[in-house]
């Protein structure tokens, strides 16, 4: 067995150069550079579930933690490489046995920006007494996780991806018992690392359908690492949204909430090994029943009541879309202007309107409360990952006292600001709440964003008042100028006698 001892050295092997391009966000706190997580916990039993079914990796760590210190403890650390933490998002922690326990706060801590080992700190809602145990369910997502192998394939060939991870969960604590399960989208897994088994099992992993199981393993020290690489068929698009700008514009005069989403979409799968062939593409639509790794359609199930959709890209309107709206659904189905293959990019914009009554309510105190989905991206079988999402809620001009709450994990929120946005008929500009997040996935679709604000009557009358005052000023000016006497005065002639 190739078990290695020095944790930081081995974790650094996992590090990839792509980390540099991603920002690490601001939801983190700084600790001294000599920081080492105190050895106050033990993982009594741990099940690590890695799901590579979608085009991002979802990991679940279900762990029974035990306080082995003499004092009560409430900070549990999880180590990641610097590269991994830049691609990590959507961290959610709950108590598996007591759903009312909470809230658990998960945040990135930074003790040395140059170090390759970074930590995620989980604060337990109540300190765990010495000797006591708690069952944690930690789930998180890793984006840009796969690399295609082969890196370039023919248009009609199947795509295979690889993913590397550790057979033992990365931990700063001793783990008494653990196993790692890997779930795949199909049973076609041509390559995976085999390691010697323990007990009755001669060799790990055990394969059951679309699942590989490494373990159970005996006690492993903190930082134990065993690299595992799996290669599996993934003949679907690896859709990656590098940046999504989502604008939600509230209009009280028009009784409307307008949505606009600007996507910068990439396909991170295998590149084409030869030039794109339109004839082969059309043939494959029949012969392979459309089974392809290219992205050819996106489906947006919008909220019921959505109207006036539009779909454009840099060239202009794209006509290959369908919109079905009735009492039960509002489904927007769009086809990109070209099938998007690995390494290709497709930026596009969609937008739609909805009546304000669907999202906006008046409160008893005279204010307003808005409830909109934080994310409404495409719903695809293979999933969609979002590296950066910027949600901008543009409230009416003069809205004040803005408060908000969102059910998006706080670890993914990098900044929140209230800005001024100027557009048609504005004088001082509209109040805009801008929330920037990173590393989200389509599992967070339809998570709520609730905003309350005050909008006094004087502010709502600002637009007609501005038009009124300019028009009346014009009329007064017309009257004044009309009264100016421009003729020469006629001087009476006095006759001489």
């Amino acid at each position, binding site marked *: 067995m190739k078990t290695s001892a020095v944790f930081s050295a081995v974790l650094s092997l996992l590090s990839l150069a792509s980390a540099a391009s991603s920002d690490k966000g601001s939801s983190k706190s700084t600790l001294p550079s000599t920081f080492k997580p105190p050895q106050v916990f033990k993982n009594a039993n741990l099940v690590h579930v890695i799901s590579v079914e979608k085009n991002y990796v979802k990991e679940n760590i279900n762990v029974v933690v035990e306080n082995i210190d003499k004092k009560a403890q409430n900070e549990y650390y999880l180590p990641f490489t610097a590269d991994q933490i830049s691609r990590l998002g959507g961290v959610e922690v709950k108590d598996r046995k007591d759903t009312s326990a909470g809230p658990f706060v998960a945040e990135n801590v930074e003790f040395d920006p140059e170090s390759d080992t970074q930590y995620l700190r989980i604060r337990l809602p109540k300190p765990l007494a010495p000797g006591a145990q708690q069952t944690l369910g930690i789930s998180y997502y890793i984006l840009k996780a796969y690399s295609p192998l082969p890196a370039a394939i023919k248009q009609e060939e199947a795509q295979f991806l690889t993913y590397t991870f550790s057979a033992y969960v990365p931990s700063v604590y001793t783990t008494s018992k653990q196993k790692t399960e890997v779930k795949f989208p199909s049973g076609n897994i041509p390559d995976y690392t085999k390691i010697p088994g323990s007990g009755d099992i001669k060799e790990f992993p055990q394969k059951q359908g679309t699942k590989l199981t490494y373990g159970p393993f005996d006690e492993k020290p903190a930082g134990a690492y065993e690299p595992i690489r799996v290669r599996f068929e993934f003949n679907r698009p690896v859709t990656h949204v590098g940046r999504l700008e989502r604008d939600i514009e509230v209009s009280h005069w*028009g009784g409307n909430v307008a949505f606009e989403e600007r996507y910068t979409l990439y396909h991170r799968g295998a590149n084409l090994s030869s030039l794109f062939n339109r004839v082969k593409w059309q043939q494959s639509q029949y012969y392979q029943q459309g089974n392809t790794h290219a992205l050819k359609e996106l489906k947006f199930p919008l909220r019921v009541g959505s109207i006036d959709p539009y779909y454009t890209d840099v060239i202009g309107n794209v006509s290959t879309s369908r919109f079905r709206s009735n009492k039960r659904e509002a489904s927007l189905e769009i086809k990109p202007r070209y099938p998007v293959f690995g390494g290709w990019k497709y930026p596009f914009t969609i937008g739609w309107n909805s009546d304000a009554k669907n999202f906006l309510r008046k409160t*008893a105190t005279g204010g307003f409360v808005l409830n909109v989905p934080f994310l409404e991206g495409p719903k695809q079988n293979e999933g969609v990952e979002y590296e950066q999402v910027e949600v901008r809620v543009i409230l009416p001009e003069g809205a004040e006292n803005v408060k908000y709450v969102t059910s998006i994990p706080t670890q993914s929120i990098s900044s929140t600001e209230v800005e001024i946005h100027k557009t048609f008929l504005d004088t001082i500009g509209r109040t805009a709440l801008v929330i920037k997040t990173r590393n989200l996935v389509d599992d967070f679709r339809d998570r709520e964003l609730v905003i309350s604000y005050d909008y006094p009557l004087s502010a709502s009358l600002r637009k007609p008042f501005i038009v009124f005052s300019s028009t009346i000023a014009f009329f007064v000016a017309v009257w004044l100028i009309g009264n100016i006497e421009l003729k020469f005065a006629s001087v009476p002639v006095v006759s001489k006698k």
Partner: protein
Amino acid sequence: MDSSLHEVWQAASGSPFIPTIGKENQFLVAFVLLVLGFGLSGAFALNRSLVSLPTLAVPASLSLAVGVVYMFCAVGVYV
């Protein structure tokens, strides 16, 4: 973040926001107001006097002001 907002949203469930003029009537209202506004402007142009300012110019400005705002909304620019 203010976690009490969910309760505020639930409590306000009986009072959805209804605008003064619904979307379907915006164009009609805007059109009538603008016609009225331009008509009164024309009348003021023909009879420019101190008396015409409050009797013609002020109503013209008012109807143009509200008409412009609703015409913006009616053509899809929801201000």
